[in-house]
């Protein structure tokens, strides 16, 4: 391994954990205690009985740091598996955002509605002066959508963070 490699990379890591009290605190405490970045983090139960949860973490660091993050996660007692989707191969990653746009200006409102249509966002709420759009897609696509909405009266954003999965038949 090359220690001199200081290039930062982003990693999307999925962690399968026992769904027990404190497990999320363990994961978050690990990141804050050791000074790792969290760019996004999602967690929800993923099996029928609700015994297992999947945590998806988007983080960044040098190759050595990312390997270290994975090893640190893997040694937590309630962790079943740690998968670096960025390394396993092609994967899909998506998040959802609710985006509120408020404007008194009718032109801006119609512009907002038009862009929402082009980005494939759904309008889930509308009043005379506002919209709430629901938009699903890659982080980059969501970012671009928000940039577009900003001059049109972007007022509030709620994002879920990234859910991710490998393509094809590979499972973690």
């Amino acid at each position, binding site marked *: *391994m090359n*220690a001199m490699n200081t290039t930062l990379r982003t990693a999307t890591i999925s962690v399968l*954990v026992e769904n027990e009290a404190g497990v999320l*605190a*363990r994961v978050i405490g690990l990141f804050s205690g050791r000074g790792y970045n969290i760019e996004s983090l999602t967690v929800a139960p993923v099996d029928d009985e609700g015994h297992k949860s999947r945590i998806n973490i988007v983080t960044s660091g040098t190759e050595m740091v990312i390997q*270290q993050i994975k090893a640190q996660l*893997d*040694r937590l007692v309630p962790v*079943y598996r740690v998968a670096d989707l960025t390394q396993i191969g092609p994967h899909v990653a998506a998040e959802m955002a609710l985006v509120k746009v408020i404007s008194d200006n009718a032109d801006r409102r119609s512009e907002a509605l038009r862009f929402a249509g082009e980005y494939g966002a759904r309008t889930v709420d509308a009043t005379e002066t506002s919209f709430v759009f629901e938009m699903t897609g890659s982080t980059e696509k969501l970012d671009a959508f928000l940039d577009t909405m900003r001059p049109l009266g972007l007022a509030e954003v709620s994002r879920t963070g990234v859910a991710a999965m490998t393509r094809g038949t590979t499972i973690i």
Partner: protein
Amino acid sequence: MSTIAPAPAASETLTLSGAEVLLRALKDQGVEVIFGYPGGAVLPIYDAIFQQNAIRHILVRHEQAAVHAAEGYARSTGKVGCVLVTSGPGATNAVTGLVDALMDSIPIVCLTGQVPTHLIGNDAFQEADTTGITRPATKHNYLVKRSEDLARVVHEAFYVARSGRPGPVVIDLPKDILINKAPYVAAATAAHRSYRPQTQPDAGQIAKAIALLKSAKRPVIYTGGGVINAGDAASDALRRFARKTGYPVTSTLMGLGAYPANDPLFLGMLGMHGTYEANLVMHGCDVMLNVGARFDDRVTGRLNAFSPGSKKIHIDIDPSSINKNVPVDVPVVADAAAALEALIAAWDADPAQPDRDGLAAWWRQIDTWRGKDSLRFTQTKAKGGVIKPQYAIQRLYEITREMDREVYITTEVGQHQMWAAQFFRFDRPNRWMTSGGLGTMGYGLPAAMGVQIAHPDALVIDIAGEASILMNIQEMSTIAQYRLPVKVFILNNQYMGMVRQWQELLHGGRYSESYSEALPDFVKLADAFQGVGMRAQSVDELDDVIRAMIASPTAVIADIAVDQKENCFPMIPSGAAHNDMILGPEHESRARGISDEGLVLV
């Protein structure tokens, strides 16, 4: 309970209270001794303890000491140490001990009392968020919220504490769980759901390691606490592997005793206060075999100058220890004993011959470094002469060698600890108990207590500093209660010597707050705690005091007045490279300028 849940196997099982179930599980886990301190939240456990004889309770005088005692017990026996403390302040007092055990990979199960489940979160009397506080202080922790989980959690806690890289585990026990009836279940025979550490090495990695080791011209075996944790089998395999290869061996502070210190292949301890030869061998080697050590900053010095020309093999049971500080060429995730056995088998099976000429030249080089005798000191033997601290340890070692008793050494933290590591020569594992990773002053006395409980007939000595010993001095009372013949050997330099040394070398000799003012009279102190106090003021008194201390059937505090100005050498200042070592006044000492970068390091 829902209708689909299986009925309890025997109706008998539901006649036990949670506290009784707990004790039964502890007994089934082989617990013989608990170090603890009572309080409201754990009274049901104390009541259950009162009504049985299988498990002995040792009443400490501070919860921190309970954990250190359990560490001493664990490290000297290879078993899991067990601690019992009450909620709130009992638990918070235990935290230092838990972190100490975490840093040094000592298997501990610590039972903490908790307010009843319905009060949790209400800021009840003596409530603390114990699982929250101890999450980063433990390998794992549990809060038992349902009686039916109790027995399983206790069994699991012992499995987690001793498996893989060992460590402390907390079980937080609400008072209602202890009082209510609970079902007993035996330990599961199935593998743990999620925690399954790898213990067997990968054959391909072993083959790569052997190829490197056979081609080495300047090899070194660098061993750590992992070899001790892997048990006698690992120390034994290490000895066979080293003798088979003829490769030099060095050890971290935590690994001392895994390889016999008097063996010609042994270079002494490495690192900040390691020997000249050990550090230069690490710097100049071409193949390094790290077994169960973790490239700690006390060992590596400046990272980008650490052993620059070597290929590195790293055996560790914890994958997160590999490639953490130092990138390695051949990682081997395994138990140290299993990996060393695999190395021995693969070495024998491989037809390639090691480079005997290269190795001979390497040993000639090592011998010239050894010739420097970097631990040398001069002790005047004149009557009334000031005792050098190194000499005090050396004599302690030599005199204990004259008897055929098992000797266990614990230490506090400071210069005396480093001199003990340098001058007390261990030839067996589990005889040396010291706070390495956390460097906890106050560790040694309670740890010695735990060792003495485990080995009642052994000679157990806490090599102490006059400052450190005061941090858990209350344990003299525990020692008196159980009539433990623990010996406290204080190297009294009237300074926080290690602090004073750094101030001398790095802060212009401004000795800010490092003088040990208003010390107690340690002889009277021993007396007050029903022990025997002794004092050596000058070199002519030293041997007699050591002999009297060892001969005494009771606890002893031996107050040894030593040279106040003595510094611990060699020293690699923080942020310096291994070949940038400061040697003592006996040598052409060479203190290269310490960088600002070095000054910020601890």
